[in-house]
């Protein structure tokens, strides 16, 4: 069976969906990702869907599920690169993808993840010094 590769990049996991998704493939991505977050203690997941030409209610739900599951495992999820036509279709379909962070491209998505993880780190660690890493 086909599999969508998951790459580890520092504290983050990177997924680029380059193939046409069908339901079982999307489900196995969900399972693999959640397992990888656990195994690598990743702090963030970035999913690039710039090559995905359609997102229907099932795939939309999978993205929502991934974000919710990762959140429980203390990782943030950002979906990046959605095509404008896909965004229009999703809203008309009635799926506003609430709970999923989005960014325009991989670069902005990475920035957003860094920011989120950094904010969390600041919340946990005592504010000892002002050596914040400016992004």
């Amino acid at each position, binding site marked *: 069976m086909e599999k969508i590769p998951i790459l580890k990049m520092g504290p983050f996991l990177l997924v680029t969906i380059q193939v*046409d998704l*069908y*339901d*079982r493939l999307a489900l196995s991505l969900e399972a693999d990702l959640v397992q990888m977050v656990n195994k690598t203690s990743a702090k963030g997941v970035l999913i690039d869907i710039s090559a995905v*030409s*359609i*997102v*229907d*209610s*099932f795939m939309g*739900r999978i993205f929502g599920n991934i974000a919710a599951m990762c959140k429980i495992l203390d990782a943030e999820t950002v979906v990046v690169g959605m*095509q*404008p*036509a*896909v965004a*229009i*279709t999703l809203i*008309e*379909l*009635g*799926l506003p993808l609430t709970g999923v962070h989005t960014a325009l491209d991989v670069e902005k998505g990475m920035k957003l993840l860094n920011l989120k993880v950094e904010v969390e780190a600041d919340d946990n660690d005592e504010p000892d010094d002002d050596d914040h890493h400016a992004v």
Partner: protein
Amino acid sequence: MMNRTTMIITLSKDIMHIIKDQDVVPFRNRVKECAVRIKMGLVNQTKLITAASELGRNMLKYANGGETLIEIVTKGRDNGVRLTFKDKGPGISDISLAMKDGYSTGKSLGLGLPGAKRLVNEFEIKSEAGKGTTVVVIKWANG
């Protein structure tokens, strides 16, 4: 509605079966080919293919698959893609309920039928309990 449907002429016809998960991918591709052939804009293409995906999934999920008809149709100056989904599943006992947002007998979001209807220009559903369900949708190139 009746005289509008009689004016529609079919230009090309294609039959595809959806019996397993993966069949949805070539089916979506075939729908896209037809949409491109009649120069449908990208947004309308995306809406049509998304609706096709929803309805194809419904057929798989509730009726273990079925037959689809992909047609390029024309009415005067307007060209469009007409999709027919025919299954021999259990049928839908209450169509108006099934067309409601958020209603699902499965564990999905219940957006499939009402969502697909919003994405196309014409939507017709016929169902008989125990016999099966037929859904016909049309998306006009400029619709």
